């Protein structure tokens, strides 16, 4: 039962609108730094664009999708009206105001620090305050998800929490805690300097705080996608979830081990010793576990659908899948990109292999493939699946939807594969232009051109996505019925307390964060003489 449809639609529409803008900027960046673009006479424009692209795609877009989807899950999985609707709107407006507040200084060239902040570079105060508002708005959502689950539990003592809501709340807790790292960096370090109260900052400590957020935020982006894998895909293609408890275990593992691994982003940093880098490397390997479990469970769930449709043989069932169903297509594309991206991630996880690709274009290729590819294509699928229930109108352009998904998949491969390749050749990240006339750089020109073409394919697909949704607002009315989630082959009548509640796992997440981050942070915070003069952006 979706009652607060306007609230959910507002989240999705704002998310997709800013996504469209950021996607356009991204395509322009790919073009302008490629050999088919002309050299940018003012490279500073590139970094404005890059800061806006990262801030929107990293903070605003996925957060709004998770929130909108979260409200939809809460109302439809719990079959309970959302508690705290006014607060939910407050959170939404905080994010809108925060986004505008952050984007204005970026557009004026006063905050070209990229979404990863990079102190001692310091941008305009309002950029950081805008980001803080976005995070605060999302924390309201976290609280609402917890409260709504609590209300439901009171009315259904001991009953198994629906899988979608269990995972949704796990994702919200993960976000609440992972955002703390960047919040500490902003509130304790950057904002006092941006406000002019201080003029020095410990850049090394700031990088550690940020790494706390930087990795687990990816798993927050991933949560809606995994929830869709488990609770939407099997239903949409006519199958069942292979195992309800394995699904819960996967989400719990994400909650616990996504956090204490962020320092693999600082393998090449001088402010952390080798010991903690190794610990974080080992934990990073561990986070592959829930994904490996998920790949198995989802493939098995899909196989059930195929066999129910008359599929036979060891692999022959694959042909029996409903390939014309957009959800099936999106899942397959998502898995292919997750496979390549995940393999790349395992390379990044080890210090030894990371050394050859750290901060090269390989990394940019990697996270675009995982986030822009595997994750975002499922955001599209979620929107398509929910849309008729939100608008009360049918999405009639199924063929267009399939084309859009195909284009996104092809575009992402064409963009990211050459990107990985030039990374191996040692091409550094975040450069407004390259001197392709240099004989050492000239061989990379072709790959960069391919990536730029991929960027335009993605832009085309993104525009189609927005057009399809907009047309869906004016399509003929239908009764879409209640929004349902997939059920398991053996739907559990009872679930062990450990797989039905979050408290134990949240505690474990916090403890592991303290063991893996406590000492490095304390050590840096108490070492004297590590603060360095701030360098104000736009003041030069």
């Amino acid at each position, binding site marked *: 039962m979706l009652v607060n449809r306007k609230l959910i639609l507002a989240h999705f529409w704002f998310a997709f609108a800013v996504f469209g803008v950021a996607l356009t900027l991204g395509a322009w960046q790919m073009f302008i730094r490629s050999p088919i673009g002309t050299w940018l006479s003012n490279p500073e424009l590139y970094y404005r664009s890059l800061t806006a692209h990262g801030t929107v795609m990293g903070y605003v877009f996925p957060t709004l999708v998770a929130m909108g989807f979260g409200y939809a899950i809460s109302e439809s999985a719990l079959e309970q009206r959302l508690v705290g609707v006014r607060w939910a709107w407050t959170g939404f407006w905080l994010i809108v105001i925060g986004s505008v507040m952050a984007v204005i200084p970026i557009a004026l060239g006063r905050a070209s620090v990229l979404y990863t902040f990079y102190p*001692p570079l310091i941008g305009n105060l309002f950029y950081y305050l805008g980001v803080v508002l976005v995070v605060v708005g999302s924390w309201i959502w976290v609280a609402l998800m917890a409260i709504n689950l609590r209300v439901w539990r009171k009315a259904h003592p001991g009953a198994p929490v629906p899988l979608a809501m269990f995972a949704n709340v796990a994702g919200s807790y993960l976000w609440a805690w992972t955002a703390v790292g960047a919040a500490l960096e902003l509130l304790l370090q950057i904002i006092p300097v941006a406000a002019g109260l201080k003029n020095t900052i410990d850049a090394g400590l700031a990088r550690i705080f940020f790494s706390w957020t930087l990795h687990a935020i990816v798993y927050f982006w991933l949560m809606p996608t995994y929830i869709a894998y488990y609770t939407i895909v099997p239903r949409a293609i006519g199958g069942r979830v292979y195992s309800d408890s394995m699904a819960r275990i996967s989400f719990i593992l994400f909650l616990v081990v996504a956090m204490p691994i962020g320092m693999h982003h600082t393998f090449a940093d001088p402010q952390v010793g080798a010991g903690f880098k190794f610990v974080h490397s080992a934990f990073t390997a561990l986070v592959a576990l829930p994904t490996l479990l998920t790949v198995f469970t989802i493939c*098995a769930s899909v196989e059930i659908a195929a066999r129910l449709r008359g599929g036979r043989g060891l692999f022959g069932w694959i042909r029996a899948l409903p390939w014309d169903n957009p959800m099936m297509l999106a899942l397959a594309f998502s898995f292919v990109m997750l496979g390549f991206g995940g393999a790349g991630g395992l390379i990044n996880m080890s210090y030894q292999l990371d050394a050859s690709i750290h901060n090269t274009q390989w990394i940019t290729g990697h996270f675009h493939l995982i986030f822009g590819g595997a994750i975002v294509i499922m955001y599209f699928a979620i929107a398509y699946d929910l849309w008729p229930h939100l608008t009360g109108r049918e999405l009639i352009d199924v063929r267009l939807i399939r084309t859009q998904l195909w284009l996104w998949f092809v575009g992402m491969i064409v963009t990211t594969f050459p990107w990985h390749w030039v990374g191996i050749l040692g091409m550094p990240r975040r450069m407004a232009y390259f001197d392709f006339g240099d004989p050492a750089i000239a061989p990379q020109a072709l790959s960069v051109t391919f990536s730029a073409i991929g960027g335009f394919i993605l832009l085309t697909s993104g525009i189609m996505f927005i057009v399809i949704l907009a047309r869906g607002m004016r399509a003929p009315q239908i009764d879409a019925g209640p929004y349902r989630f997939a059920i398991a082959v053996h739907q559990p009548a009872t679930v062990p307390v450990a797989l039905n509640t979050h408290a134990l796992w949240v505690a474990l997440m916090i403890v592991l964060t303290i063991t893996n981050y406590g000492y490095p942070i304390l050590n840096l915070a108490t070492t004297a003489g590590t603060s*360095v003069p701030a360098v104000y952006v736009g003041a030069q």
Partner: protein
Amino acid sequence: MSAEETHRSVEVAARVERRWATIAVIIVVGMALLAAFAGIHQATMPQPRVEITDPSRIHLSGEFVESNLGSVLEANGNITVRAIGQQYSFTPACIVVPVDTPITLRATSADVVHGILIQGTNVNTMLVPGYISEQLMRFAETGDYLMPCQEFCSFGHEGMWGKVKVIDKADFANRAKSGGRLSCVGQ
């Protein structure tokens, strides 16, 4: 499905699942062990110690004063290279080192965060102001290598490219005879 059949199919499902979970755990543990082995056995671990330095004073005293930057032949035949990154160049802009010799790179930043990446090698480290980065390297072949800054350091970042010139051992020894700190300048 009868109750007995349901029970049996639940068991089969659980068994297959356990098997896959075991395989997944083995993969994960195997990877962590591989990383540990490579780190310890091939001595490719990050720098063990954290060293600090004050970027607002590095030009006045200490190992990163301008006259001490560049390559120096140590008594044991090894080379130490000292360099700094600043918006938007490296000093020295072109590093000269001998081929097939153990080299210690010690570097820091004079202002914001930079990075040193030597293309075609595994040399890749961050330069964080306030801290000293140390990395061991050894070049197997002579030639010119590009050395871009790999971290965003504000809007001149795209122009921050250094070079490493790897020359013959005898050539280098010859140039090092007069002592002092070497760079490509004056070659």
